[in-house]
């Protein structure tokens, strides 16, 4: 007597038989028939032909039969919209039923029927159900709004359901609150800019109360919603953390991870010296460890997130290395993740244990895992200097096993160890050379060739070894060919007498017999270098290489920030920003970690404008990928990321540019213009230089000229003349005037202090109120000597943009307090928005296009700039000085259209279309930005720049 009987069929047509049974008078038979229909449906059989017969069974007081019919309806209504209308009456009637279970069921099912005609009838019952006295009905109705929105968003807005839904957040029943939050979150996902979930301290308080009482799933919705909130100050942040911490002890791992997300985000705002901060850190570790004892699928997601957490806050799990040790029957995806985290946690304290484990793993069966384990040993050597020796000997042991893929991996990592610790372990080269013949993977071959070239002077038969590779030159992969070319040139520079023939051979192979442009380029450059100036060649090819950084595979800091806000989501599993891959999330707003009020640690803050000139502050530069000419010249193409510091010595850059300018065209004659491949190669060299100069990397020859222009330009924006901010009358004799400027990428407030009183003034200090862009003094106000009567002093106060943020009216208003030995004075001033335009505000063309389309038209603002006499070229160059970058230019009917992009210090992009009519004074501009408030200010800036300069 099981349901499997529903699958048996008779010889007569199945559908025919079911039809007869559905129309039977006997209730029991009817129900059995519907069950058979459902059973067929579940296995994917098409039983839509029975639609009218099944719908006929709907009007019944038997709840089970009703539910079954509803199940059927949900599946097939879409394919039979006209028929589905037949069901509407029953639905509407059921919505009035005295039994709340039936009311809820009816409204729930109606929402699932994705037929336009039905949705029209749904509105009235839904409105009633949203205000139903029974919370079970209300919570069901809340979800129904989300369903309806998915089918017909406009209808939901017109009917005012969104407001009703917002009201439900204050419902007395926690389950209703949770469902309302869930529904609003889902709706908000398709409206990134709408302020549906308007979080304020009051609503947060309600959510936190509901959090304790609702179901586990509701807790996840509420926690995810909380994570979008930015607390006003550290006190609020702490109180939210305190109320969220108990969730770490929940049995549902998704609740735990969502709670971890909220805590990781809000912790950012807590001062580090606070006792509570330490307590919180300690509380985070045990639940994360516990996640690892769950089912493997849960472990996997947990591990991907832990990978982020150990990068963001390594202190949390630093003592928990052992839980990441691999069990031999863990699924491979768990093993690989554990290994990754082990390396991140490796330190001097635990390196012995880690190495012993890694050696154990290197003898396992699974090839991928073994390879990664061998690589991990190399990474440990690079990360923990004290262990390097032991790592090298472990690797040598592994090479002795002669297992082919182990040997190859080991050689690849030993190359990196040589890079990191030059002149330390070269004694092992002999052992490596013994295994030369067994290498069949390009990466391993290239690594070995690099080693031979680099240490050519110590390897007696280096020329023979390299020559042996040269025989099959054309069958090698590009990676190996490039490496071989470089290695032989190195060898030649070290032992010029014996290897002249070899180097000529390889140069001709590379330049004449190869059709790979990268290889040819490099060949020609070496050739020219060697033939014109061997000393220069030596300097270039045998230049000292920058050290490689300790940590590899680190997620780039801003991405890490964003991912930390997305812990527990798909984004965190893939380690990609959510905008990168989730379909349907149209223009997701980038989330950022909040910044602690008054924190001076600008290196930690996400939106600190990176001073352009100071390259040392930039995060470890990753050597651009292969095919990058400049990198190749220094044969770094195989190298892992370099440590912080300029990737190349400046003089080298100039050398390389010169080389390209003077050398190649003579070498190639007239050929250069016609060869696009050459052009690409050429442009990529300056591109490597570009990042350090703040100019965007781009390809194409035209960029070369752009670059020439922008390099020489002072990157300081337009400066308004000083104005009196605080007259002496109001400030007991202190007159303050000033202006704002952006010089060399640094925001400055330039102030003149004049003492118009009779006594000496000392002890100056300055403070800003919270403001829209988080401007704050980056240092103290330095008035070195006391200000005697009638004396004026000029001060440039550098500003940071990491202060507390509060929206001001007008947006660019800044309230300032200045103190001296006499009193404290307050004044407010307005800064030009142009000082917030950052140097890397040039958007890629495609991104510009996509973003322009992406921003809703409501956000577009149009302005007319009158009486300015500029043509498009001067406009471009003038605006460029203010970090307004022209991306493209188009000429339509005598009108020049300039497409420009601007990026603010807080990461907001502003897109501008500027129309310049040649010969007529004035231009039109339209501004598009996700934050439309800034448009007016941008207009003012344009107006000022374009007009003022034309006067000058």
């Amino acid at each position, binding site marked *: 007597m099981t349901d499997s009987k529903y699958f048996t069929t008779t010889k007569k047509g199945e559908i025919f038989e079911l039809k007869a049974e559905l129309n039977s008078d006997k209730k029991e038979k009817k129900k059995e028939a519907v069950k058979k229909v459902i059973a067929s449906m579940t296995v994917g059989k098409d039983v839509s032909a029975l639609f009218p017969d099944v719908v006929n069974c709907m009007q019944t007081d038997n709840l*089970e039969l009703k539910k*079954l019919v509803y199940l059927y309806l949900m599946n097939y209504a879409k394919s039979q919209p006209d028929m589905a209308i037949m069901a509407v009456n029953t639905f509407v009637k059921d919505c009035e039923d005295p039994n709340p279970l039936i009311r809820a069921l009816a409204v729930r099912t109606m929402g*699932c029927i994705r037929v336009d005609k039905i949705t029209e009838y749904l509105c009235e019952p839904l409105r009633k159900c949203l205000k139903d006295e029974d919370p079970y009905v209300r919570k069901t109705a809340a979800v129904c709004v989300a369903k309806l929105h998915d089918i017909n968003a406009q209808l939901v807005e017109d009917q005012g359901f969104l407001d009703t839904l917002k009201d439900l957040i204050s419902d007395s029943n926690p389950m209703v609150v949770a469902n309302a939050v869930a529904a609003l979150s889902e709706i908000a996902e398709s409206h990134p800019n709408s302020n549906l979930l308007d979080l304020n301290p009051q609503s947060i308080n309600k959510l936190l109360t509901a959090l304790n009482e609702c179901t586990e799933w509701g807790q996840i919705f509420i926690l995810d919603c909380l994570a979008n909130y930015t607390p006003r100050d550290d006190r609020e942040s702490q109180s939210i953390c305190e109320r969220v911490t108990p969730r770490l002890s929940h049995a549902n791992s998704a609740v735990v991870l969502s709670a971890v997300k909220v805590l990781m985000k809000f912790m950012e705002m807590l001062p580090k010296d606070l006792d509570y901060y330490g307590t919180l850190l300690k509380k985070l570790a045990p*639940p994360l*460890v516990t996640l690892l*004892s769950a089912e493997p699928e849960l472990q996997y997601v947990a591990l991907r997130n832990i990978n982020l957490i150990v990068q963001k806050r390594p202190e949390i799990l630093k003592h928990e290395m052992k839980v990441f040790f691999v069990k031999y029957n863990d699924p491979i995806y768990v093993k690989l993740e554990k290994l990754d985290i082990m390396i991140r946690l490796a330190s001097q304290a635990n390196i012995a244990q880690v190495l012993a484990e890694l050696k154990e793993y290197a003898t396992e069966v699974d090839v991928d895992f073994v390879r990664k384990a061998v690589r991990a040993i190399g990474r440990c050597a690079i990360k923990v200097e004290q262990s390097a020796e032991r790592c090298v000997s472990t690797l040598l042991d592994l090479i002795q096993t002669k297992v082919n893929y182990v040997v190859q991996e080991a050689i690849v990592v030993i190359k990196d160890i040589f890079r990191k610790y030059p002149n330390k372990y070269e004694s092992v080269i002999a052992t490596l050379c013994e295994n030369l013949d067994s290498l069949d993977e390009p990466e391993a071959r290239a690594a070995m060739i690099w080693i031979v070239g680099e240490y050519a002077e110590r390897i007696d038969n280096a020329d023979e070894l390299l020559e042996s590779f040269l025989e099959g030159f054309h069958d090698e992969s590009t990676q190996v060919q490039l490496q071989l070319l470089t290695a032989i040139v190195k060898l030649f520079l070290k032992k010029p007498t014996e290897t002249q023939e070899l180097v000529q051979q390889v140069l001709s192979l590379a330049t004449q017999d190869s059709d790979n442009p990268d290889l040819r380029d490099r060949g020609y450059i070496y050739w020219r270098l060697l033939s014109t100036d061997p000393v220069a060649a030596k300097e270039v090819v045998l230049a000292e290489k920058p050290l490689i950084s300790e940590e590899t595979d680190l997620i780039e800091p801003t991405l890490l920030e964003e991912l930390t806000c997305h812990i527990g989501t798909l984004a965190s599993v893939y380690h990609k920003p959510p905008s990168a891959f989730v379909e349907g999330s149209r223009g997701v707003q980038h989330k950022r970690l909040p910044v602690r009020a008054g924190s001076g640690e600008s290196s930690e803050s996400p939106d600190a404008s990176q001073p352009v000139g100071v390259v040392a502050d930039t995060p470890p530069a990753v050597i651009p990928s292969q095919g990058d000419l400049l990198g190749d010249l220094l044969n770094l193409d195989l190298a892992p990321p370099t440590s912080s510091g300029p990737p190349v010595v400046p003089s080298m850059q100039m050398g390389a540019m010169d080389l390209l300018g003077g050398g190649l065209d003579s070498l190639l004659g007239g050929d250069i213009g016609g060869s696009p491949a050459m052009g690409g190669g050429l442009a990529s060299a300056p591109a490597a230089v570009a990042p350090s100069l703040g100019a965007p990397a781009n390809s194409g020859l035209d960029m070369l000229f752009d670059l020439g222009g922008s390099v020489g330009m002072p990157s300081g924006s337009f400066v308004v003349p000083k104005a009196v901010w605080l007259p002496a009358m109001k400030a007991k004799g202190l007159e303050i005037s000033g202006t704002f400027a952006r010089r060399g990428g640094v925001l400055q407030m330039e102030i003149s202090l004049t003492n118009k009183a009779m006594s000496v003034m000392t002890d100056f200090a300055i403070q800003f109120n919270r403001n829209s862009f988080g401007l704050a003094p980056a240092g103290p106000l330095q008035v070195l000597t006391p200000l005697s009567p009638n004396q004026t002093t000029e001060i440039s106060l550098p500003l940071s943009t990491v202060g507390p943020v509060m929206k001001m009216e007008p947006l660019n208003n800044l309230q300032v307090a200045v103190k001296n030995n006499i009193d404290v004075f307050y004044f407010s001033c307005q800064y030009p928005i142009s000082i917030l335009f950052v140097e890397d505000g040039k958007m890629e063309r495609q991104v510009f296009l996509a973003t322009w389309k992406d921003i809703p038209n409501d956000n577009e603002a149009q302005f007319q700039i009158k009486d300015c006499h500029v043509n498009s070229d001067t406009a471009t160059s003038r605006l460029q000085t203010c970090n307004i970058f022209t991306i493209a230019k188009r000429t339509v009917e005598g009108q020049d259209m300039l497409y420009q992009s601007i990026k603010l210090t807080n990461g907001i992009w502003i897109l501008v279309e500027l129309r310049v009519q040649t010969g007529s004074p004035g231009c039109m501009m339209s501004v598009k930005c996700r934050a439309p408030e800034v448009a007016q200010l941008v207009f003012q800036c344009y107006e000022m720049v374009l007009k003022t300069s034309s006067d000058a």
Partner: protein
Amino acid sequence: MIHSLFLVNSSGDIFLEKHWKSVVSRSVCDYFFEAQERATEPENVPPVIPTPHHYLINVLRHKIFFVAVIQTEVPPLFVIEFLHRVVDTFQDYFGVCTEAAIKDNVVVVYELLEEMLDNGFPLATESNILKELIKPPTILRTVVNTITGSTNVGEQLPTGQLSVVPWRRTGVKYTNNEAYFDVVEEIDAIIDKSGSTITAEIQGVIDACVKLTGMPDLTLSFMNPRLLDDVSFHPCVRFKRWEAERILSFIPPDGNFRLLSYHVSSQNLVAIPVYVKHNITFREGSSQGRFELTLGPKQTMGKAVESVLVTSQLPRGVLNVNLNPSQGTYTFDPVTKLLSWDVGKINPQKLPSLKGSMSLQTGASKPDENPTFNIQFKIQQLAISGLKVNRLDMYGEKYKPFKGIKYMTKAGKFQVRT
């Protein structure tokens, strides 16, 4: 939220599909099958699989893949937790969660899935509530239903659904009032070849079976609550009292539930109840290898180690084995190279051993990998962490319940490297 669910059996057939929003064609599972093909073992299929328009999140339990389809950003753990909950519910309803059981109860399964999710949002996942909405099938009920024509769907709104204690229904009545608690601990450990512990930790749970009339309010206290590093509670446990007094205070759900799971740290506090002596050697150039394995108890607080089972994946080069167990039986599968020795109880006076020879492929070189032994065992009446329940009190009701507490220690992932 969760869009659709497909159930896939071990031979790669989709035998059930359920859609909570619009219908997603089952061809989306092709991406899953591709991933399955790439993975060598079913266990190695990655849990999250991207496709051009959807994401597939799957769990493997009881040899069935539960594949959920999502379209927007949904927390993957949320989906995985939910899928495991679905499996648990099936198991609770049908006793086992197999393809046959699901097919036998396909309509109940469908009703359950519909009740558990609405538009992809979880609706009712507590077993207590579900059982009030949809009665589990029993032979008796099927017979009664066919005779009386009544249904297995509840007509009333579940009472617990909206109360402050959503996990408990009202009006519970028993003639015998009883509350049983099982403290079960699993040891996960890796022991290296010299016998020293590399890592060891204890995962413990307290499972309860509470059949008490009315609305009892229970408190359970431990002799040594500080032992527990990390605890996860059933929602019924009042967290504040645990924080303040380290006692568990709760109104229990009716029937079986997991009150608490806990974790005892890896910081070398864990007692290891068995030791293994082994000697596995392959001689270079010989087609024979020696195999010796002896088990013995240690740190068992005088309790017997029972149901011992040793399994090991021998190197691929091993053709066959010829072993002699001092007790129990062993099997060796020459295809999968899986050696399994069912030892039974360890007698401390006469230690069980397994000795003999392995034959290797002639001419093959000495295997590179060392086999790992996976050991399972049980120890009754012992919680290896030393955790002890102090007392259990009941408030809110007048009768005197019958109380019982049982302890057990099991091996979790207990591995010995050679």
